[in-house]
């Protein structure tokens, strides 16, 4: 800024501190709650400092199972979440890098049509077509399977658009040099395009991992067995009892566990994350 007034700076830092506080407080409370016993949490007078039941709560959540209604240990839900988040992220990258390669580096009849067929899927998120999609998955006998959790969410145009955009920035001369160097479509892809796409792949992976991990409605619909639940759907089930019976300290421990992987990904891969976020929206 142009002026240098100390008061301005003080106001700015006050507002920023408030912002950090607002963003952090709900999570802080969850962390604190996950360290107290059930009685302390339910009392309505939970202290704002950590308690002494941390290990017990997390042990119970991860290995024994959250509460009376959901007997699935969170450890297994975490595993399911990992499998489906990885599956969605890698599946999207796989199908979209191939289709983008076809659309950008080849000329063939129906190329534009293929691009639009893929592009239109941007417009309709899974939420607006849940039941028919559910029926398809059910007809394919994929309820309560990883394939059912993953495949329907892999169908989206985001990745194809992102890779297409990146491929367009790769100089044409690299392909021409490769052709003169005797590389065909396979070699060019493997030796040149794929290595150059690594940052884009990583950025897309970060975004799609978070997207996959945070899915709620879809896993809620197609998993009927507790053993196939993801952690995000699992928390809610811990709370769907009467309030007195809900074990909030375990629910909060679970919430913390559900947040750690995606938040860690965002914080530690911040640059890739921001890049992925900005570029998928272009």
């Amino acid at each position, binding site marked *: 800024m142009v002026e240098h007034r100390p008061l301005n700076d003080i106001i700015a830092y006050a507002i920023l501190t408030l912002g950090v506080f607002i963003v952090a407080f709900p999570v802080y409370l969850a962390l604190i709650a996950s360290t107290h016993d059930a009685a302390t949490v339910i009392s309505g007078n939970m202290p704002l400092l950590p308690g002494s039941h941390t290990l017990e709560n997390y042990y119970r959540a991860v290995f024994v199972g959250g509460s009376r209604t959901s007997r699935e240990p969170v450890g297994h839900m975490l595993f399911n979440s990992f499998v489906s988040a990885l599956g969605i992220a890698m599946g999207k990258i796989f199908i979209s890098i191939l289709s983008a390669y076809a659309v950008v580096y080849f000329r063939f009849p129906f190329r534009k049509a293929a691009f639009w067929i893929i592009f239109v899927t941007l417009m309709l998120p899974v939420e607006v077509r849940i039941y028919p999609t559910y029926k398809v998955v059910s007809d394919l006998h994929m309820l309560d399977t990883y394939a059912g959790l993953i495949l329907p969410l892999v169908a989206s145009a985001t990745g194809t658009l992102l890779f297409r955009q990146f491929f367009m920035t790769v100089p044409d*001369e690299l392909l*021409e*040099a*490769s*052709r*003169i*160097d*005797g*590389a065909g479509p396979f070699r060019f892809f493997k030796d040149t395009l794929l290595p150059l796409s690594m940052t884009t792949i990583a950025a897309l992976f970060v975004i799609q991992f978070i997207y996959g991990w945070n899915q709620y409605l879809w896993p809620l619909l197609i998993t009927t067995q507790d053993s196939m639940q993801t952690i995000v759907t699992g928390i809610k089930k811990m709370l769907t009892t009467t309030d007195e019976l809900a074990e909030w300290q375990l629910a909060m421990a679970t919430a913390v566990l559900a947040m750690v992987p995606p938040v860690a990904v965002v914080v530690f891969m911040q640059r890739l994350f921001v890049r992925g976020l900005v570029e998928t929206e272009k």
Partner: protein
Amino acid sequence: MANVALRNVHKTYPGGVEAIKGIDFEVGDGQFCVLVGPSGCGKSTLLRMVAGLETITGGDIDIGGRIVNQIEPADRDIAMVFQNYALYPHMSVYNNMAYGLRNRGMPKPEIDTRVQEAARILEIGALLDRKPRQLSGGQRQRVAMGRAIVRQPKVFLFDEPLSNLDAKLRIAMRVEIRKLQRRLKTTSIYVTHDQLEAMTLADILVVMNGGRVEQIGNPLEIYQKPATTFVASFIGAPPMNLMPLRDAGGFKAAGGDGILGIRPEDILLLNEAPAGGLALNLTVEAIERVGAETYIYGVRSQQGDAPTVSAKPGELPPGEVIVRVPGAIAPAIGERIRATAPREKLHLFSADGRQRIDL
């Protein structure tokens, strides 16, 4: 080693745009051919057709006695240096050079020998482990050359390889490319829009304009006897002065209008024109002193502008004339000077500029 022949080569894009309108020329074994012309004249397209990166829609391209129209770039036995170098950004210098050889299944020891030899010639031995982004512009240029050399191809193709370098480096590399080509004796085709580069490098110069060849020949011949007004104004800097001449009958019995040309360096500041030569009255408008020589920009007034040779002089309309004189001696701005040129230094073209008329 091979010669390259183009026979009535055409290129029409699917949209109907005709980029190359029938081109014929031949580059002999070991010769250095330069394609020169303004941007959009089709010179790069033509080079890329030789490389196999653009399809040929008419005519034949022949490399070493084999028609290559339908042959893939990799199988034409050519190597190309791109304007932006097109180095693989993720590969080391060594791998950039070795990649094409590996794809051809060459044994490792031989690849190594060739890469090391090329690195030695180009003095980039110390850079072999670096990535392209760690290199300067000149070093990248050398690697791009190295990638071409290791292949030991029949033909080198250069697509404006020096245009991304600064002026000083460009001159140095120009000299090096020429030395290298003399040493390797590989047939080369080189595209540039820089007429100075074209003049200094070429054994055969091909001047192109609008998808056609304007003139083919050795550089000096083209400079001395440009076939069209386009060539006259494109080759040589500052460009040749061209003056429409109403009723050129004085110069040539052929009659009709024409265009009179005179190179700035051929103009002498003398009061009297040599017999049969040209005399012009100029008012000095601007002066550029570049040290070794001086450019005088003068405006021609009509009186006395007639070529003094003929019984029936033609007429010149008013216009600007550039005069190039050695040293730093120059008239003052606004001064009136008299510029003359001997008859043997004058060029005469038909009124449409497409034909040279011998004086």
